[in-house]
Each structure stands twice: as C-alpha cells, then as structure tokens.
C-alpha cells in the first residue's frame, strides 16, 4: 500500500500537472491522503522535492508563457507551502516523531523554503491560510523542541516584516497569529527561549501587544518564584540525605546554561570519538549543526560531567524539587506525578543521570527491589514517568541502577562503541552488583524457566534492545564479527555477575530485529497518551520475547543475521539512528537511552489513524471533491478532480461511494469527463490488482466496472457510444462484464421497451470494437458474436450475422475461427445434432411456434430486403410451415444454425462445396432450410458465381435438387451467362440426364437447341415442365405459373425480377405448341405417364405427358392467346400427318376462345378436305368438335361426304334435328348433294330408309360421350 501510494504520489507530478492547475485542490487532498494512507513521509518529500527542484525550473523555462503567468509560480508555491504546513502540522500534533520529521524536512531544505515562504504569501490569497498554519506550527515546534527555537524565531521574525507586502490581505489576522506565537514563547520557561525574551518583548511591543506580553511575563515570574521556593525546600531536605551539598541559587536560565558552558570541559577524547562517529555517519551532513546543538544539549547533562562548581544544574534543581515533593509524602506524590509527566523526556533522562551520583553506597533492603522487580514486568510497557510517579523517588534510582548495569556490561564486553570514560567505572559497577542481582533474578524466576537465563532478561532490557538496534549501524560490523564474541566466556568467568549482562547484550542484539520487525513503526514504550492501538502490539512483542528462550550458541549464530537486519532497519529509519548516534557517545546509560527511545522510538513514520477514521475521512474527501466540483466547468479543475477522485475511490471502501460516483459519472458522461474519471478509477484499481493479486481490488474493480456499464446502458440511449468506449478502454475486462455484454447482445437482460434492437446493435457494436481493439478478449467476444449468430431471435441473429460475415470474417485472424464455428453449426444442423443443443436454447420459441414462424419468415424477407410481394408469399408459406409443426421447428432451427454459414458462403463461395456434399444426408426439413438459404445466397452472390461452376460441373450425389435450386436462383431474371450454360449443358450431357437442371438456363438456348430437348422437358413432371415452358418463352417469373411452381417446389418465395433483359425467346408460343404436338411417343420414346390429373378424352389415344403439356399451355391464356393458337393450328393443319392431339387442341382452343369459332370452322373445313375421317383418332375429336361448335359447324358438317355425315349423325344424333332445320332454312339446301339431303330426310330416300333407326341407336349412346366432352374441357 505504502509503496503504491508512494509511487502515485510522485506520479502525478508530471508535465500535465505542472501546468497552472489548481494546486490548491491537489495539494489539499494529497495532504489528506498523506495522513489517511499512512504514506511515508519520504515519499511525500520526494514528491515535494520534485516539485521544488529543477523540475519546476525546467518546466518554467521551457514554457515562457507559463512563466509570464505568475499563476504557475503561485500554484507551485502553494503546493510547497502546503507541504510545509503539513509537515509542520505534524510537528505540532505528532510529538514523538518531531525530530525525525524535522530532519526530513531539512532534507528538502524545508526551513529555507519556509523562510522564503513569506515572499510568496503576498501573491496569493490562499497563502494567508498557510501563514496561519505556518506560524502556529513552527511556534509549536519551537516550544516543543527548543533546540529549533532559534531557527524558528528567526523565520518568524523575518516573516513579520514581510507580510507587510501582502496588501489587501487580512494582515491583522496574521499579525494576531504571530502575536499569539510570540506570547506562547514568552510563556515557555526553556532557557533557550528565555534567552530571547527581550527580543520577543520588543517584537510584541511593536505589535501593540506589550500589555499582553507584560501580563505573560508577570505570570512567568510568578511561576519562577514558585519554582525557586520549591527548590529551596528541596535543598533543605537534601542537606540531610546527600553527601554532596547542593545550592539552589540564581535563576533557572543561568543554571540551565551552565552545563552548556561546561561542554568544553568535557574530556577531549570523548569529543573526538564522537566526531569520528559522525564522520562515519555522514549521510546527513545537513543535520550536523543541529546535531551539534543537540549535543550541546545532551552533553550538558552527561553523567561524566564533573559538577565541580557549586552551581546546581537544572537537573539537580529538579531532583531537589522531586525530593522535596517526596518528602511531603502522599500529598506531594500527586504533584510529583504531574511534574514528572510534564518534564521533557530529555530532561528527565538528564535528571536521572545526574541523580546517579547521589546513589547511596549501601544497598537498600532486598525486599524493596524484589518488589520492584515484581512490578517491572507488568509496568515495563508503561510510561517511565508513571513508573517513577507511582514508586516515588527511589524508583528513579532503581531505574538508574539498571541503566548502569547495561552501561557496565557493555563495557566489559568491550564493544567498540564504549566510551572510555564510562568504562573506567567498573569498580562502581561491581560495588553495585549485589543490588543488581535480585532484580535480575526475580523476573527470570517469575517468567521463564531457569535454564534459559538470557532470554528472561529481555523483559528488563526491552528498551536497550531497541536502543542498541538503533545504535548498531555504527557498530554493526564489529558486533556481527564472531571474534568479538569469544571474550564473553572469559569475562563471565572473571565476574559471574557480569555474565548475564554480557549475554544480555548479545541477546539484545539478536532480538532486536524481532522487536523491530514486530512493531516497526511503533515505539515500544510509547507514552500512553498516544493511541492505544499502536501501543498494544508493542506489548505483545515484548510478551513474545518473554517466552523466548534461546541458548547463547544460537544467539551467536543469529548475531550476524541480526546485525544485517539491524542495518536494514537503520537504513529505513536513518533519522532514528542518527538520533541514537547523538546519544550514544554520551554514554548516557540505560536510563537515558530508555527515555530517549521512549521519546524517539523506532520511528513511526506514519501517522496512525484508526481504520474507521480512515474510511470515514476518505469518504468525506471523496464526497467533497465530487460535490464541490460538480458544477464547475473549468476543465483544468476537472482534470485534477478526476485524478483525485480516482485515487481516493480506489482506496475507499467502495460500497460507500459507488453509487455516488456512478451517478456522477453518468451525469457527466456527455462531456467525456465521466468517462475519463471511470478510466482513472479503473486503472488505479487495476494497478492495485496487479501489485497485489490477493487484494480485494479485483472484486471492487469488477463490481465498479459492472455497475458503471449497467448504468451506462440504463441511462444513456442505445445510440450512445460510451458503453463501447468504456469497454474498449478499461484496463481489463472481467468475465462478468463479458457476461453482461453477452446478455445485451442476446437481449436477454433488457426489458421490452422497444429499444431492444438498438441495444443489440449497441452490444454487437461493442463486441466488434472489442474484437478489433482488445486482442486479450478477442476470443471471448468472438464467442459472444458467434453465439448470437445462432440465436433464436431473428433480429439478433441477423445483426450478429451481418457483423460476423461482413466485418469480422474479413479479418484474417478471425476468419478461421468463424469458419470453423459456422461449419460446425452447419454440420450439426445437417446431422440434427442441433435438436439437442439448440432446442433447449430456444425453448421459448417452441412454445409459440406459429408466431415464431411468422416472424422468422418476415425477418428473412426483412433482412434480405425483398419486395413485399414475395414476403406475402412468405407469410402463406409460414402458415404452411406452422401447420407442419414437427418439421418446421427443425427447419427453423436448422435455418438458424446455417445462417452464418451461408452468410460466409457469400464471402467465400468455395464453402458451398460442403453444402453440396452434405446436402444429400440432410433431412427434409433441413433441406428446406438449405433451399431457403441457397436461393438467397445465390442472389447475393450475383455474378461471382463463377467459382461455383466447379461444383456445378461435378455435383455430389444427392444434391440434384440443390443444384437445380442453385441454377434457378442464379438464372433468375437474367439471361444465363454463357459459361454457366456451357457448364450445365456439359453436366446434362455427361452425368445428369435429368432435364430439370436445364430449365433454369433454357432461356439461353436457341431454337435449335431447345427443340431436341423439348421432348425431355415435356417428359418432366408437369410443374417442372411449366417452369421450363416459362423459361423457354421467357415469361416473367412473376407469372402465376412460375410462382405456383416455385411455391410447390421450394416452399418458399423467390424474389421475382421483372423486365429482365431478353434476347428474345427461344421459341414463340406458337412454336412451343407446334413442338409439343410434334412430339411423337414413338419417335421420342416418351414413356406413358400415369397422370392422375387427366383422363384422355381422345379415345384410344395414349394419355401422355403431352396432353398435360398442352393443358399447361392452355392455362397460360395470356401467353397462348387467340392469335398464338390460330397461328399454331394453322401451321399444324397442313402437316402430314396431323399431330395426334391436333383435334384435342382445337377443341381446347374453341373452348378457351369461343370467338375463334370462324377460324375453327376453317380448320375443320380444311380437315374435311384432308379427309379427316381417315384418321380415326382425330376423327373422334373432329366429331366432338363439330358437336360442340354447332350450329356453326353445320356448314362443315354438310361438307362431309354423306357416309361420313351419316356416321357423324349416328354418333351425335342430337345433331340431326338442328342440322335438318338448318338445311331447310338456309339456302344451302340447293347446293347440297342429294345424298346428303336424303340423309337428312329432306329428300326422299331412295334406298336408305332404315338409316333413322341407326341414328336413333347412335343417338342413344350420345349422352355419355357428351358427358365426356364436358369433362374434357
């Protein structure tokens, strides 16, 4: 987390942010985040550095416009100042880490920036806020850390005049703030501050705050006096107790300064060794002078300091005070507690050290210490000052004793960091040994078994552990050096008491990494008013140490490791180590170090914040950003805001804010800022996922993306491209989002709000762009698209297929997959496997078969943009299908499954081979589906069919129907291209004798070509012949004939094409008729056709297909018109022999066109002339024709020779009467031969008197024949 944050902290400071954007907002939230996320200050400072240093200079220079615009400068400075304010605020609030922070601050020359800070205050209003905090903060620092007082004061004093520049600003408030700060200084009793009291008062007077200053001074004087009084009391008590007489005199300031002066008296070797150490530790040269200042401070209270003169050091003074208080007993205890808890830790350390020389020579009673040792473990984690407070003055001595032990033990192990002056005290140590013993032994007995002596001591030495750990970067090499260790046993031999301390030291070193690892950021002995939650782990760690028992040998092994760890640790917390450095040369003994480590522990580089606080604050921050900039239209603001929101969001508990952010995003999407925001957020989340795969960020990411996607779908119109863009640009697409996409595409998630179709388009559009733009999820998206292509809903399918075939199939890396899928689907359709897989998918479609079929049909026409006429036919067809429940469903399913494949065939005709190959295997329903597809396909293919010729020329077995279908579709409405014609002809001649395949191309045939195959055509089933006829005559395919044919055959509509280019029919209708009549069963080998449709009316004649053919012709009255018939009949009447069906045709003609009667009479006359009665088959027809055309036929009848007339009248007796009447009335009677008249009874018969009987007998049979004639027509 920290690492990540650190990286982004620096990341935002790129070129884009270095524009004059509102740094205020940016900084403010960085600052909040800094606290929230417990980011390391180092990161922050790095960011600051990059802001302050060359980066800014460079970017300014590179952009002169920006330079002119001072806003840039101001923004930068605003940022810097905020950073400083922040750091300073930490000084104020986080007392434990002040020094360390301050060093870091120095690292970026914080103070120098602070000092120039006022210059810029004048320039921008916001700086006044910084001023306040600046003043407050550094004033607080100065009070808390007097050593910085000088710097701070000079900064403040510099500051004072410079704010005059800030005209039009509310300087009064700043001045007031300064005033407060100065007054605060005045209240402070610290000598360094007190030193500058005069100066402060002068300043305050200048600010017209002299009164307040005086008041404060009066207060302080009062306090001083009280102090002195207390000291005096103390002195009296001490006189009795202590051998060393103390004088209490002079003011505190002077006393306090005395040790500083004494520093020079310090022994010189000590000083040099210190210097050397600093030389080793020169990584922070900038800190040197502060270190020096610190040295002054600390050295001044060093125990080695010879307190030769009579002046009391402040420590002694306070010790005296404490003594006085203790002397007061219970009453004084409370005030003592308050006093000690208020004493600065440094000072406390000094006090203890100073007091050491007052240690009595005789050990106090043993019980006392065992008491103490009983207390120790439990109190070990509490504030030392409290320990002191509760146990009273002697406790201090006790603590101090233990400190001494450590110092001495360190000495005896001759570790390099030991100071000579300290090690010159072994005698004192040994003298005190007896007192140490009980303390050492007691806790061990209590906590740990005896056989693990070293570890038991840990509880006492928990603090030194840290201390040493911190310290050991100086000494790491020597400590980790095995040769250093051997001396231990020898020492332990010499002085048994010292064994344990020395072991302690080793153990401490080995344990130190444990401790530091356990609570890196946590001071072990945290003053208790710091957060408890930080405190607890520390205690745990020390508890853990209590139970840790490791033999010394093991400790030795781990020493190397420990030292390494320590070194690492020191790197991380270099400020702390440097802090320790300052202390170490002083030999300030254990107590000092303990207190030091209390105050300056292993650094808490982060500011702890309770989880709840963090969350809450994050949310607040987020809310505020979102709300406050909602209405802002400044793009630069937005830019910053987005970046911030994204980061905050990524680290916030999403549930709290997801709704809010989403709403904001969607509302802002139009300006594309919402999108940008989403991107920022998602990318941040994603980076979290990447950096830590185990984190919950993945879940959040998915949830958020899904939420945004859904709200985009829900709130924006389908035509909006945002959704697609969102998916296209997000860092990664989880499965759930793909699922959502799939749902959209298949329309399964949206309601029936009428926008479904659009949504599908939107979804598919997104899929398309994802496939193109995101290779990562190409496969998944392709799957979605492909799944849609077999979707039962037709608009989904149609759209998906259009997408896949038109757009995706062209993409090389996809085509193979698509093809494979399409082929699989096609084959599964053929194999009927789909019934398992698809039926389940389309369960709903089964439930409403009829409607489904309807829509299926219309959708086909819709998607193919056919004209309404055909789609009407589709409807009728659909109804038909619907009636065929069981077959239509598979058909539809098959149709769905195959759609894609056929769509691909358009692009790649060679795929059709598979269709042809597998066609034969398919069921009828599937074939229907294939037919529907293929005709559509062929039309779509247009002129590019040439690749088909290969297939056509060699059709697989069983695919004849399909082939015909293909040919029909290809030739429909156009003149068949020559190569196709040639191919088909070749096929017809070589392999396939079925003339059916010729039908589509027959219109391209010449008359000479048609006539030879005409018998074959006639031989075809009637409907096929009709088709052929239409082609031959090049009828428009919209004629009833063709449509009917197609309906019957293909069970689907075919788009008609009118007005196609005709080169002229191969045959005229008349020629067709003639050709039909020319067919002779004998010559052409036509088989008899068992037709259930017609019974031949020609007695004895073969009921042949020819009859049907003729009938078919006559059905086409628009084609086979009166004129056509006239022409044909005229042609044929002269033929010899007359075509067999001639009379039948004549009768049909007269039936169809009664106006032809005159023409027919001419024909009949001609036939009479040709002695029709000699052709028995025709004679029957002739008579029938006469009979049907009476009375017009009477003239022709009368032309017959009398025997034939008689036979005719015999055959049709009902003719006789009208004929006789006709003859009587007309003038023909005279021209008639007598025999005829006789026959009619108009002339006296000579020898034919029985004839009437004959005719009457004939007459009797007439009704049946007339009935036949009626049926014939």
């Amino acid at each position, binding site marked *: 987390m920290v690492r990540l944050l650190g990286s982004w902290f620096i990341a935002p400071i790129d070129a884009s942010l270095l524009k004059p954007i509102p740094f*205020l907002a940016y900084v*403010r939230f960085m*600052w*909040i985040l800094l*606290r929230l996320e417990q980011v390391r200050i180092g990161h922050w400072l790095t960011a600051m550095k990059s802001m302050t240093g060359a980066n800014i200079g460079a970017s300014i220079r590179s952009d002169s416009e920006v330079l002119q615009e001072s806003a840039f400068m101001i923004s930068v400075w605003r940022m810097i100042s905020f950073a400083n304010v922040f750091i300073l*605020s930490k000084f*104020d*609030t986080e007392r434990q880490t002040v020094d360390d922070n301050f060093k870091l601050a120095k690292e970026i020359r914080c103070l120098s920036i602070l000092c120039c800070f006022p210059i810029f205050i004048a320039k921008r*209003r*916001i700086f*006044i*806020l910084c001023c*306040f*905090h600046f003043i*407050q903060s550094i004033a*607080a620092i100065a009070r808390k850390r007097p050593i910085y007082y000088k710097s701070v004061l000079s900064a403040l004093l510099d500051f004072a005049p410079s704010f005059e520049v800030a005209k*039009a*600003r*509310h300087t*009064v*408030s700043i001045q*007031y*703030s300064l005033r*407060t700060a100065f007054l605060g200084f005045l209240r402070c009793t610290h000598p360094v501050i007190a030193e500058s009291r005069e100066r402060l008062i002068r300043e305050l007077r200048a600010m017209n705050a002299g009164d307040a200053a005086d008041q404060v001074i009066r207060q302080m004087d009062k306090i001083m006096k009280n102090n002195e009084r207390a000291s005096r009391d103390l002195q009296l008590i001490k006189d009795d107790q202590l051998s060393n007489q103390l004088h209490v005199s002079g003011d505190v300031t002077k006393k306090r300064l005395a040790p500083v002066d004494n520093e020079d008296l310090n022994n010189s070797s000590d000083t040099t060794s210190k210097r050397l150490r600093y030389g080793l530790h020169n990584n922070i040269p900038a800190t040197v002078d502060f270190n020096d200042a610190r040295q002054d401070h600390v050295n001044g209270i060093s125990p080695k300091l010879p307190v030769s003169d009579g002046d009391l050091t402040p420590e002694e003074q306070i010790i005296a005070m404490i003594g006085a208080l203790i002397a007061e007993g219970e009453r004084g205890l409370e005030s003592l507690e308050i006093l000690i808890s208020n004493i600065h830790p440094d000072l406390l350390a000094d006090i203890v050290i100073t007091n050491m020389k007052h240690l009595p020579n005789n050990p106090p009673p043993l019980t006392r210490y065992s008491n103490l040792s009983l207390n120790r473990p439990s109190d070990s984690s509490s504030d030392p000052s409290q320990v002191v407070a509760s146990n009273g003055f002697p406790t201090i001595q006790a603590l101090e004793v233990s400190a001494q032990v450590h110092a001495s033990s360190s000495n005896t192990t001759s570790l390099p960091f030991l100071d000579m002056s300290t090690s010159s005290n072994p005698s004192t140590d040994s003298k005190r040994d007896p007192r140490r013993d009980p303390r050492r032994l007691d806790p061990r007995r209590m906590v740990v078994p005896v056989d693990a002596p070293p570890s038991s001591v840990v509880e006492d030495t928990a603090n030194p552990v840290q201390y040493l750990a911190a310290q050991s970067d100086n000494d790491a090499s020597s400590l980790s050096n095995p040769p250093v260790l051997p001396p231990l046993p020898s020492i332990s031999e010499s002085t048994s008491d010292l064994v344990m301390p020395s072991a302690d030291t080793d153990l401490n070193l080995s344990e130190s990494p444990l401790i530091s690892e356990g609570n890196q950021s946590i001071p072990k002995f945290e003053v208790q008013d710091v957060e408890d939650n930080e405190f607890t782990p520390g205690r745990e760690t020390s508890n853990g140490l209590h139970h840790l028992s490791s033999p010394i040998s093991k400790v030795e092994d781990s020493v190397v490791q420990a030292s390494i760890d320590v070194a690492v640790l020191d790197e991380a917390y270099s400020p702390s180590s440097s802090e320790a450095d300052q202390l170490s040369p002083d030999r300030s003994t254990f107590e000092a170090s303990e207190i030091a480590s209390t105050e300056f522990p292993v650094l808490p580089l982060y500011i702890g*914040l309770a989880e709840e*606080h963090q969350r809450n*604050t994050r949310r*607040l921050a987020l809310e505020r950003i979102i709300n*406050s900039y909602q209405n802002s239209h400044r793009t630069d603001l937005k830019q910053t805001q987005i970046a911030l929101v994204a980061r905050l969001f990524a680290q916030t508990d999403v549930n709290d804010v997801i709704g809010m952010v989403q709403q904001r995003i969607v509302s802002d999407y139009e300006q594309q800022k919402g999108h940008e925001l989403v991107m920022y957020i998602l990318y941040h989340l994603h980076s979290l996922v990447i950096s830590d795969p185990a984190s919950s960020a993945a879940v959040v990411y998915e949830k958020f993306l899904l939420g945004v996607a859904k709200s985009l779908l829900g709130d924006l119109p389908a035509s909006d491209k945002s959704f697609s863009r969102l998916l296209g640009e997000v860092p990664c697409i989880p499965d759930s989002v793909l699922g959502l996409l799939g749902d959209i595409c298949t329309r399964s998630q949206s309601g029936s709000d009428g926008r479904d179709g659009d949504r599908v388009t939107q979804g598919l559009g997104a899929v398309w762009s994802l496939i193109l733009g995101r290779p990562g999820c190409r496969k998944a998206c392709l799957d979605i698209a492909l799944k849609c292509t077999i979707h039962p809903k037709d608009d989904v399918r149609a759209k998906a297929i259009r997408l896949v075939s038109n757009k995706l199939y062209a993409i090389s890396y996809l085509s193979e997959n698509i093809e494979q899928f399409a082929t699989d689907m096609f084959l599964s359709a053929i194999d009927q496997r789909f019934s398992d897989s698809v039926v389940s998918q389309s369960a709903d479609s089964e439930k409403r078969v009829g409607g489904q079929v309807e829509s299926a049909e219309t959708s086909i026409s819709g998607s193919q943009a056919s004209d309404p006429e055909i789609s009407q036919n589709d409807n009728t067809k659909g109804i038909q299908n619907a009636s065929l429940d069981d077959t239509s469903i598979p058909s539809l399913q098959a149709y769905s499954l195959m759609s894609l494949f056929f769509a691909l065939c358009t692009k790649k005709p060679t795929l059709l081979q598979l269709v042809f190959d597998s066609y034969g295997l398919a069921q009828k329903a599937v074939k229907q589906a294939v037919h529907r597809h293929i005709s559509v396909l062929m039309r779509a293919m247009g002129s590019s069919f040439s690749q088909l010729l290969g297939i056509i020329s060699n059709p697989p077995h069983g695919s004849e129907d399909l082939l015909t279908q293909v040919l029909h579709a290809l030739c429909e409405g156009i003149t068949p291209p020559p190569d196709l014609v040639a191919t088909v002809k070749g096929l017809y001649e070589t392999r396939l004798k079925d003339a059916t395949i010729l039908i589509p191309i027959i219109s391209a045939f010449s008359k000479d070509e048609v006539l030879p195959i005409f018998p074959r055509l006639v031989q075809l089933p009637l409907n096929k012949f009709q088709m052929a006829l239409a082609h031959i005559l090049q009828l428009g395919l919209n004629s009833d004939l063709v449509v009917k044919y197609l309906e019957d055959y293909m069970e689907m509509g075919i788009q008609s094409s009118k007005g196609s280019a005709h080169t002229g029919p191969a045959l005229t209708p008349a020629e067709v008729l003639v050709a039909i009549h020319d067919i002779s069963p004998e010559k052409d080998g036509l088989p008899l056709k068992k037709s259930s449709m017609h019974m031949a009316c020609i007695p004895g004649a073969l009921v042949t297909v020819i009859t049907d053919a003729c009938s078919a012709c006559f059905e086409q009255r628009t084609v086979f018109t009166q004129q056509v018939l006239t022409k044909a009949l005229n042609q044929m009447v002269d033929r010899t022999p007359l075509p067999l069906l001639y009379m039948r045709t004549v009768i049909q003609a007269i039936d169809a066109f009664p106006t032809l009667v005159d023409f027919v009479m001419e024909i009949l006359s001609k036939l009479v002339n040709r002695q029709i009665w000699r052709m028995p088959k025709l004679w029957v027809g002739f008579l029938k024709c006469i009979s049907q055309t009476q009375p017009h036929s009477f003239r022709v009848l009368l032309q017959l020779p009398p025997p034939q007339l008689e036979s005719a009248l015999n055959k049709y007796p009902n003719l006789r009467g009208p004929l006789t009447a006709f003859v009587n009335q007309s003038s023909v009677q005279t021209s008639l031969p007598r025999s005829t008249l006789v026959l009619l009874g108009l002339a006296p018969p000579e020898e034919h008197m029985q004839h009437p009987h004959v005719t009457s007998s004939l007459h009797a049979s007439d009704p049946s024949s007339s009935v036949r004639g009626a049926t014939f027509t």
Partner: protein
Amino acid sequence: MKLRYAMVCSSNQNRSMEAHALLKREGLDVASYGTGQHVKLPGPSLREPNVYEFGTPYKHMLDDLRRKDPELYRRNGILPMLKRNVSVKTAPQRWQENAADGTFDVVLTFEEKVFDMVIEDLHNRNHVLLKPVLVINLEVKDNHEEAAIGGRLALQLCQEFETIENWEDCVDDVIINFERQNNRKLLYSISYY
C-alpha cells in the same frame, strides 16, 4: 455551500445565543458554545455573579433567577434572555467539550479571549480529519444591545459564506468586504480537525 457554524462566546448565554437564535431562524446549521470554566450570569452586584455549570438547563437558571429576584433580572434583561435561550436549546454547552458534536466549518467567536481559547483548544485536539476550520473573531460587547447587533452581523457574515463555494479561496475577500461594509475589525485564523 452548506457550512456548519459554531457561535462561541464565554458563557453561551448572550452573544453566542443571540447569534445562534438568529442563524437558526434563518435555517443555517448552527451550534453555540461557551469557553469559560463556568456559566456566569450577572448577579446582584459585580462580585456576586450567578455561577452555573455548563450543562445546566436554561430552564433551571430561569427558574432559579426568578426565585431569587425576578424584578432585578427582568430589569437587566437576564430573564428575557434566558427565555429566548430556552427556546433555542436546552443548556449551555462548553466549547472545550464539544468534540462529540462533530466538525464545524466556521467558528465565530465574539471576544478575542474566546478566540484565543478556541484556537488553542483546536490546536490541542488530535488532528484526525485535517479538515480546515475557519475561526473568526467578531468583537462584540457583552450586553444585550450589542449582542443583537452582533447577532445580525454574524448572520450577515455567515450568509456571505453560504454563497461562496470554497471559503479557503476567498476568505480574505469576504472578511475584508465585511470589515469595510460594517466598519468592524475581524480576526481570523484557521485550524484543523
């Protein structure tokens, strides 16, 4: 922008309550506090003030003073003031003990001493949210007439802040304008929650 205001005087009786009542009537989000150790009300003489603990209900004070000397306290306006206070909230609250009341955006004090105390108190709190709070001092004398004027000024100032989006940005302008318009001197500072 909707801000949260705190009116602070020393006893949370007169000035802060006057402003509180007024702002509350205007629909602003407001609370009021005192910074003193105790709630002090004028007594029969300067040396004998009526002293209550914070948290003592106004009603109780009202009854107490009525019992003691209704005439005196009616004359010096204490009783009417307490009646007004009863209608605003239950009891005086102490600023230093208001941590549980949440954060404020603007704190308005009516006395420099109170201003200092508020600032110091805010500094001494644990800064957790780092949410800036603007502390403004509007010097108002502690009598009824001035309090009434001060209340109106406070309202005006707060309404001014209501209209702006980020007080951090233009606090100076607001303050300076206000000073010019009303011929008053303000002090302000910031602190953080």
